[in-house]
């Protein structure tokens, strides 16, 4: 696919995280994966109280310490030291994944490699690497009530990551509800993929050109609101 759009504006990682965080509703229990997702914890909309879960056994934690500080016995799933806040509680691994698998989390946000039209997710194996790591991704994908994927719209080679059918090894089938990319916000529905928002300077046609499945344009499709 051509790289004719390579000089166009794209949301940076922090801005994508900001957009993701707009999805957090008051009282939501949220798990954030490594990378862009974890940045979203800095952008919880004002006045909303959200409780973060980390699969290594904690619900309710505060800010990330700078490297080298904090308590090595209190980290998030990315290994970053985090802080205790009023309401924090700890539990072991099988309880942590009872919470995940048992559909108790309102939102899980993960990075992605490919998302299919039906909401299939591939995010654990880059084919060129041959060896990948599943970790907790499969459990979170099947367990969270709403799975949001934050990823760039295309690969480094300008190949669409939003595809008719995933060619990479799957994480879970029919699990993704929302995709936030650097140029669009797309909802996965039973009717198909609905384009809800597009990045400034982009046209519907341009987004479609970088997207494999045919997008349904939402009647209220608008510029990404931040």
């Amino acid at each position, binding site marked *: 696919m051509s790289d004719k759009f390579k000089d166009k504006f794209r949301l940076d990682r922090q801005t994508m995280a900001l957009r993701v965080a707009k999805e957090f509703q008051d009282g939501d229990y949220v798990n954030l994966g490594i990378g862009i997702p974890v940045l979203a914890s800095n952008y919880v909309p004002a006045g909303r109280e959200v409780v973060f879960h980390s699969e290594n056994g904690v619900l309710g934690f505060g800010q990330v310490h700078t490297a080298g500080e904090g308590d090595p016995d209190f980290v998030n799933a990315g290994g970053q030291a985090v802080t205790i806040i009023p309401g924090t509680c700890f539990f072991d691994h099988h309880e942590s994944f009872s919470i995940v698998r048992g559909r108790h989390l309102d939102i899980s946000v993960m990075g992605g490699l490919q998302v299919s039209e039906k909401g299939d997710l591939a995010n654990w194996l880059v084919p060129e690497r041959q060896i990948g790591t599943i970790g907790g991704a*499969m459990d979170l994908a099947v367990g969270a009530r709403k799975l949001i994927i934050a990823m760039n719209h295309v690969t480094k080679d300008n190949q669409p990551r939003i595809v008719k059918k995933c060619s990479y090894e799957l994480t879970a089938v029919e699990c993704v509800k929302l995709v936030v990319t650097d140029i669009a916000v797309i909802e996965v529905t039973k009717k198909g993929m609905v384009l809800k928002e597009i990045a400034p300077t982009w046209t519907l046609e341009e987004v479609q050109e970088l997207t494999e499945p045919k997008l349904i344009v939402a009647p209220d499709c608008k510029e990404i609101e931040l």
Partner: protein
Amino acid sequence: MPINKIVAGFDEAVADIPDGATIMIGGFGTVASTPTCLLEALARKGVKNITTVSNTTGFGSDVWRLLGYKFSEDMDVLVRNGLVKKAIVAAPVSTVYQNNFEKLLRAGKVEAEMVPQGTLAERIRAAKAGLGGVYVPTGVGTIVEKGKEKKVINGKTYLLELPITADFALIKAHKGDRWGNLVYRRTSRTFNATMAGAAKVTIAEVDEIVELGQLDPETVVTPGIYVDRVIARPKDVKVDDRPISQEALDSQAKTKARGSA
């Protein structure tokens, strides 16, 4: 005789672990939640052809020493000494660092059975709880379902996952008493508390041994019945001044840039 599960030395604690054993290694991957001294003792003993059950395969002492840890060895100490035949693991390789396990895996010198993290925890719990198996939704429609029985229950598809048992479980806790009751610190429960009692013999490495009765009964996380041996970490550990590899330095830089460990 009063029950006394306390063992004096780490070498003694692992003395009966034979070549070919299946060994659970507690923790999440962070060295703070890892039974470092037990792993070092196992490496000294040089048990061969072991199968491990763990969340990660270790990042190596260098990575942790860079972050200031005094107890810095993780599963890598077994891997790099060529003691591991097969790892049953949720995260065999790292996304920021090519660890020794990945090198051996790519060279065909170790085997990996990858299990989704929650399924790994549940299969270990199944062994502890005497279950014959559990049906999980995780992995349906993926590479994980290969060779597994699928069943539709109330309209939803599940995979049959069997218990993972082991000969020994090596875990890390914060405090323990002579009955084997254990408490942990914060997020260091993880697979430590899950594995306690899931193997034939559970050995707990603790920061501190306390008198029976000093642990508040309401706060005990692992009941002593799940634990066979308790051993305290030395209070003073000599500074490990082995040089740190360039790879570890690179990984630290990469990690900082990414915002993850």
